[in-house]
């Protein structure tokens, strides 16, 4: 499972890196931290990441136990979980996916508002900006579904687009923040940028 965690097929590998780091969340996070105490912010972030990592690890262990060796679409997961772990597990999977989707959607919409503000230089009312940021994506998403694309395929390839943008965001952030980060932070951010860029290049060559 550990090997499978770091070695995966492409473009899924690059897509998972982008889905994990989430460049839009990096941007939004830096805006949401205004006024927060530095140590509170650090402990809060570490606690949240620890919780997320525990959930992530439990999902991987469960998937390795129940789904190893099977080609499974995300939509089939509850039907597979039910006979193995009971109806409650399948129900909780659906509830967790729904809650996570709502939260992820809110993050992407908020990040979209910030980026549109940056790109256009104009400030809009919050509700109108959020509606625009979300609705502008509904048409292409529905078109993809009607053309027969699998939602999971669309998910993977949009995350792959994210992975291509990730080095740009990280490199600009590292360049801008180099005086504030300190040696350790600079090295960590630079290592992350190099790793993601290497993943993208590798996916072009191998994919």
């Amino acid at each position, binding site marked *: 499972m550990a090997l499978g*965690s*770091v*070695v995966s097929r492409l473009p899924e590998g690059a897509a998972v*890196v982008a889905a*994990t*780091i989430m460049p*839009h*969340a*990096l941007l939004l*996070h*830096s805006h*949401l*931290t*205004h006024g927060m105490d*530095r140590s509170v*912010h650090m402990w*809060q*972030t570490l*606690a949240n990441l620890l919780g997320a*990592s525990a959930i*992530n*690890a439990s999902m*991987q262990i469960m998937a390795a136990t129940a789904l190893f060796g099977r080609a499974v679409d995300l*939509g089939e997961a509850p039907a597979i979980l039910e006979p193995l772990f009971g109806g409650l597990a399948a129900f909780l999977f659906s509830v967790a*996916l*729904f809650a*996570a*989707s*709502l*939260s*992820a*959607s*809110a993050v*992407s919409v*908020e*990040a*979209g508002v910030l*980026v*549109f*503000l*940056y*790109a256009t230089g104009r400030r809009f009312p919050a*509700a109108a900006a959020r509606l625009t940021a*979300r609705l*502008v994506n509904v048409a292409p998403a529905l078109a993809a*579904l009607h053309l027969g694309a699998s*939602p*999971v395929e*669309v*998910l993977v390839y949009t995350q792959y687009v*994210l992975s291509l*943008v990730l080095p*740009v965001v990280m490199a600009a*952030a590292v360049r801008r*923040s180099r005086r504030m*980060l300190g040696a350790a*932070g600079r090295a*960590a*951010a630079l290592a*992350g940028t190099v790793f993601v860029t290497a993943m993208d290049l590798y996916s072009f060559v191998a994919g």
Partner: protein
Amino acid sequence: MGGVAQRLFGGVFPVFGWAGGLSGAGLLDLFEARLKRFKPLLAPPLVAMVLATNVAEYMGLIIAVHLFTGVPLDVAAVFALVDVVLSASLPTGGLSSRGLLGGLWPWWRLASWSSCGL
């Protein structure tokens, strides 16, 4: 890869959070102030990024609604618009808004409320 990558790269959030917090500005504010000449190069990939991620999250929501309710994907796509209502209606920076975002729930405020007996 998700689990390992999350552990390795979760560290970038405190780092960029510090950068934002210490400077009193978000990264995009800093880009605007200090990297203005690169804006024509930075803005298009950033817009592509948010378009891609918004489509991805919407797809995730469609799958979730489909699994949760059992309705077909086409119908789930309509129900999935619930996030539009939520996103547009929640107050910016409010507790409910931060709760929905999930990552920055102000636990310390809850602790201070409970210590005040509220």
